[in-house]
């Protein structure tokens, strides 16, 4: 019997072995909601990148003759107070929102990652000091912290980016430190120690790779809140320095004044914010499910 089974077994071994990342990707591609999220995000990124080609009108210059028009064939989302095409402004607005959101999350990943990795890897007093600073930052509500930072640094896209990053960085630091600490006690790290592996090898080959998944998921979900935070700052009048810049949150604020005359001006930027945020949330949840090796069946 063994001889009959052998060739088949050999063939099975011949196939390329799949790593965990590859497996995770395959699982993600079979996750319906995640694909929906990925679709939304792709649409927004496409809109952002190809805005100059898709947009039928200039997002900044309008003609006052066309102000506050209802959605029509010429202006599928209508026009605003200055007669600017709402659809074009939403498309260009995706540039601002996504750019600031992605930029701020990357910035937060760098800041939080360094802080969390230092705290988790060094431990002791360093850990204590870093984590107490993180606690203080986490104690302040995110949007309040962001408002404070923009008020301090002044208006402008880089300032908004820093402000939103500051709300996310402590969360990332905490997550990374937590999973590093949890990983320090895992048997495979003990095994590496008993083999005589160096500290840096244990950190970079064992602890960090196994701590990253939590951070990847958190970062994707943070993109959703970043979009909302950016819009929130815009809504509160702390948007881009140039008030003409198409930004979803600022567009919402402008529209509130004409809510009776042109309610659709509230609807479209609001919808854009919601759909983009939902897209990142769905993708984040899907990533969480597919990146967890224990979900493997």
């Amino acid at each position, binding site marked *: 019997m063994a001889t009959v089974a052998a060739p088949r077994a050999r063939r099975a*071994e011949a196939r390329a*072995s799949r790593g*965990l990342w590859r497996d995770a990707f395959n699982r993600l591609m079979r996750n319906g909601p995640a694909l929906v999220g990925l679709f939304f995000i792709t649409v927004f990124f496409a809109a952002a990148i190809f805005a100059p080609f898709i947009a039928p009108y200039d997002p900044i210059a309008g003609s006052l003759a066309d102000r506050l028009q209802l959605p029509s064939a010429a202006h599928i989302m209508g026009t605003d107070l200055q007669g600017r095409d709402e659809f074009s402004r939403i498309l260009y607005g995706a540039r601002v929102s996504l750019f600031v959101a992605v930029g701020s999350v990357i910035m937060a990943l760098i800041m939080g990652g360094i802080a969390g990795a230092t705290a988790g890897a060094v431990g002791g007093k360093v850990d204590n000091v870093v984590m107490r600073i993180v606690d203080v930052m986490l104690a302040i509500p995110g949007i309040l912290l962001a408002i404070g930072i923009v008020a301090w640094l002044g208006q402008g896209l880089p300032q908004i980016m820093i402000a939103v990053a500051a709300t996310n960085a402590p969360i990332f630091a905490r997550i990374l430190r937590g999973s590093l600490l949890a990983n320090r006690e*895992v048997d495979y790290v003990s095994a590496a120690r008993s083999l*005589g592996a*160096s500290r840096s*090898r244990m950190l970079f080959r064992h602890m960090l790779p196994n701590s990253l998944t939590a951070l990847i998921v958190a970062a994707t979900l943070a993109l959703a809140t970043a979009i909302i935070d950016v819009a929130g700052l815009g809504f509160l009048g702390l948007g881009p320095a140039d008030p003409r810049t198409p930004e979803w949150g600022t567009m919402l604020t402008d529209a509130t004044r004409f809510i009776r005359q042109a309610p659709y001006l509230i609807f479209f930027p609001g919808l854009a914010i919601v759909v983009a945020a939902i897209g990142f949330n769905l993708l984040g949840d899907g990533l969480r499910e597919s990146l967890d090796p224990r979900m*493997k069946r």
Partner: protein
Amino acid sequence: MTDDGTQTAAPAAGTAIGAVPVGLAPNGQVREPLLEVSGLKKHFPILGGILRHRVGTVFAVDGVDLTIARGETFSLVGESGCGKTTLGRSLLRLTPPTAGRIVFEGVDVSAMKTADLKPLRQKMQIIFQDPFGSLNPRMPVSDLIGEGLIAQANKENGWKDRKVRDQRVGDTLEAVGLRREYTRRYPHEFSGGQRQRIGIARALALNPDFIVCDEPVSALDVSIRSQILNLLVDLRHEFGLTYLFISHDLSVVEYISDRVAVMYLGKLVEEAKVEDLYSAPKHPYTIALLSAVPQPDPRVKSQRLVLKGDVPSPAAPPSGCRFHTRCWLREQLGNPARCVAEEPQLRALEPASHRVACHFADEVSARTVTSAAEEQARTGAAIAAG
């Protein structure tokens, strides 16, 4: 091929890597000591409050003396939480011991700086209980087993060279009954038994003298268990290994050990050759443990001694003899005050290799055991009736 997808038989000696033939004394005579431990303590602080100050201490290992001879299998048994795993990890300096001396091959390990331990790590290895948690899921088998080779590479062994390393990884895989072709696979592509073999291969790759087997079969299916146990026995003979075998499974321990120590709340209560311990246990705790082992023969009427209550907290161990709160012998003897007041030391009985930490070990006889079991049966029946 077995269901496990592994080769059943251990490979022929021809594939052996650095095999060391050892003349094992069949009667388990005391040979040259490989590891000598004296007064080993490992205490963990309990931190509390906002400032994380010490509010208590867990006495996980609290003064253990033992000697393990080269080539023998020394087993450590005890309930969960008695400190056997902590003891095993302290021996390997995976956790720094609080106090005590660990002398390995004549070198005092306990006093060494962490940086100086590296050459020693090659000689002392560990096999873990959980075949899932002990292998990094993001590493292929070649890296898992090769990790130690990279860490311990030097001019002499040439392990820096990928070719040499791959060859050795393949040899080690075959030594534990897996195929060489498995090197590019990841842990999640293996069954529990196969993973445990990978864990064993990782320890074996460095050609160690001493391996701590921390419950290596507890997490495995019963059908796989005997395969892994037999593999461990075969490897021991083939490579001249010495095992510290940690387990709570008394039948497994009886099968694999030369000598056995019983641990209770951070201390050894009894230590003897395996045949002495199983045929004539002296400590009331050991007797109770052994009475709980299921008898394969239904005609043999076993006298079960059920220990009352739970193991006391290792953060607040009882005074005197740590076992006195649950001791049936003490009840039989009318609760002597000595058990509470004075801590019994390990003392040699007949034969001298049989050591026990009980003031009244000499009072243990078939009569006391029977009457204790009968009394338990009576009160148990009374409770059931009432």
